[in-house]
């Protein structure tokens, strides 16, 4: 069984806000080297790895995101005050008091200009307190991931954006016997609306595309009810903000899960734009499905997941690729 603690921890610790996926790109390319041989980085920052099989039954594209949301410095004041703009879906109200990490290693703490109790806070009110002279306009930061594991539960700020890449990296080493030509795409700028991924496969066609991501899981109470559970198995996606999965593709994945006795859940995530959705509707269109790993709290400065879901997602992908 895959060492999910090590793999996910590595992905989580790597730096990479959208457009600045430096650390995570290095982690993916290094991790792929031992599993699938070479891979390419295109000029948009996507990582692409291809595995071909003589007499393949068809071509499959597997996509997961590289990046995570982050902050960019737009103005530096004296005394170590940096004004920032969000890169991707970060909510100002979740950031006050949060520790952030800059690409160069500097640590900052997010603060608000005035008492925000009861009032709306937005980025105009926020600043990052950093040691004076450590950051410049254009520098980027992420919420410090603070990865930690406790048995089968893994904690980190960026799991919603990194769990998919961890699973795809693991899969790259376990494709023996897969009858398809498989292309792995680790996409840049996914968290800002899935901008860059599709550029990596412009002009190509695939018989199937699977988009691997995460979905908000089983909160407990109030309006946040939902039936997707951490530990309940991979979630076969029916819909996201950019994608409605066609019934025959859902049936393919459900069939794969059933035939191997893999627990699975069905889910929708109306708020997230995926590379899969963008791929489905650009150029001549592609048949796209999605599998999501349940993550508790997909927005905000901390999240957790269950390693069994990573393992079962890997098994479901292998099963689907053998169908």
């Amino acid at each position: 069984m895959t060492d999910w603690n090590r793999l996910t921890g590595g992905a989580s610790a790597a730096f990479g806000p959208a457009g600045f996926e430096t650390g995570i790109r290095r982690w993916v390319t290094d991790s792929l080297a031992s599993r699938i041989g070479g891979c390419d980085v295109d000029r948009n920052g996507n990582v692409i790895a291809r595995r071909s099989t003589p007499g393949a039954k068809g071509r499959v594209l597997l996509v997961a995101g590289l990046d995570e949301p982050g902050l960019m410095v737009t103005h530096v004041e004296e005394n170590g005050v940096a004004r920032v703009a969000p890169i991707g879906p970060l909510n100002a109200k979740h950031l006050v008091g949060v520790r952030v990490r800059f690409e160069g290693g500097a640590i900052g703490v997010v603060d608000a200009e005035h008492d925000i109790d009861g009032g709306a806070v937005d980025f105009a009110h926020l600043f990052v307190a950093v040691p004076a002279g450590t950051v410049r306009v254009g520098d980027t930061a992420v919420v410090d991931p603070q990865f930690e594991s406790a048995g089968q539960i893994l904690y980190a700020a960026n799991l919603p954006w990194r769990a998919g890449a961890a699973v795809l990296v693991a899969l790259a080493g376990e494709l023996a016997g897969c009858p398809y030509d498989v292309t792995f795409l680790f996409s840049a700028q996914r968290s800002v609306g899935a901008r860059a991924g599709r550029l990596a496969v412009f002009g190509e066609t695939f018989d199937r595309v699977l988009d691997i991501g995460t979905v908000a899981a089983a909160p407990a109470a109030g309006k946040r009810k939902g039936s997707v559970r951490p530990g309940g198995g991979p979630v076969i996606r029916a819909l996201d903000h950019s994608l409605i999965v066609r019934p025959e593709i859902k049936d393919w994945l459900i069939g794969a899960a059933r035939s191997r006795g893999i627990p699975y859940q069905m889910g929708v995530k109306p708020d997230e734009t995926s590379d899969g959705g963008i791929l489905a509707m650009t150029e001549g269109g592609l048949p796209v499905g999605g599998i999501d790993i349940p993550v508790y709290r997909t927005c905000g400065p901390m999240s957790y997941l269950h390693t069994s879901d990573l393992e079962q997602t890997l098994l479901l992908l292998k099963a689907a690729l053998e169908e």
Partner: protein
Amino acid sequence: MSRWRGFESFLELLTLDGPSGHEHRTAERLGEWFRAEGLEVETDPLGNVLARYRGEGGGRPVVLVAVHMDEIGLMVRDIEPGGFLRVVPIGGVDPRTLVSAEVTVHGRRDLPGVVGAKPPHLSTPEERKKAVPLDDLFVDLGMAEEAVRREVRPGDAVTVRRQPVRLLGEVAAGKSVDNRASAAAVFECLQILRTRRIAADVVFAATVQEEVGVRGAAVAAYRVRPDVGAAVDVCHARSPGISGDRTVQMGGGPAVQFGPNIHPALFRKLAEIARAAGVSWQLLVGQGATGTDARIIQLTREGIPTAALGIPIRYMHTSVETVDYRDIRETGRLLAEWIAALDRPFVEGLTCFLND
């Protein structure tokens, strides 16, 4: 094999359930009718139905006529204790129209359900003043939770149940008049096209997923790569309290759209043809991208000269969308006469904005 039979077939179309991403029933029926009319039919990976009508002569330009075949709907998000279903919208659903609606849940089989909400007796006075949000609504299948879980999964589609209603004259009401009305106009158009000599090839695209962001048309236009594009969709008709420049008159004939989304020469051609053929038409001006497939067709590849026609309906995005079939017939007629007027030299002039 069934064939297009005018108004009756239109009413039949309104009985088919096909929310965005789940258009297979409508696609199958339209494909069958297109084949019966002698068109070559193919389906692309997103589910668009592309039906080709061939003109005569050499060097024929290709005209894409897009009519979206999806409708707004709902999708099951969760199954709650007791077997009640929570839903998310597919497309621009107004939750206020759903309270006490009857629905069909497309599970392993089609199941009838009703949309429930907290009764007024149990609501606070503040709650009663506000519209019920979708999160507070649920679908009741009248079945035990265990049975619901056997039959329904999160991700299953839900549509509003409504048999079409025939009103006075040729007026009909129902769900999915947006945009089955335009599919009907295409078949009315085909009846006329057959009596003309056409110097273009026409690809009629019954497109998917318009209601969630013109996704099908993006793919269809890219694949077909037409010289000229047109979208036929519904537009708002006047009704009490609703008037002004964003509406047209029901029974007044097709709306011809004008604005940045529309190629000026195609607009002029439509107006000229309508006058010559005695089709009564109405001007509908817009200041940006239209809310139709035309918004993306115009921007496909190097840019495509695009036109848009609107069929007036009342109560858009409800289950009682109301249309006058005479408007559908006239839209089909205008479309046919316009197509018959397109040829290679005209189409080639559409990229020239520098006439001295």
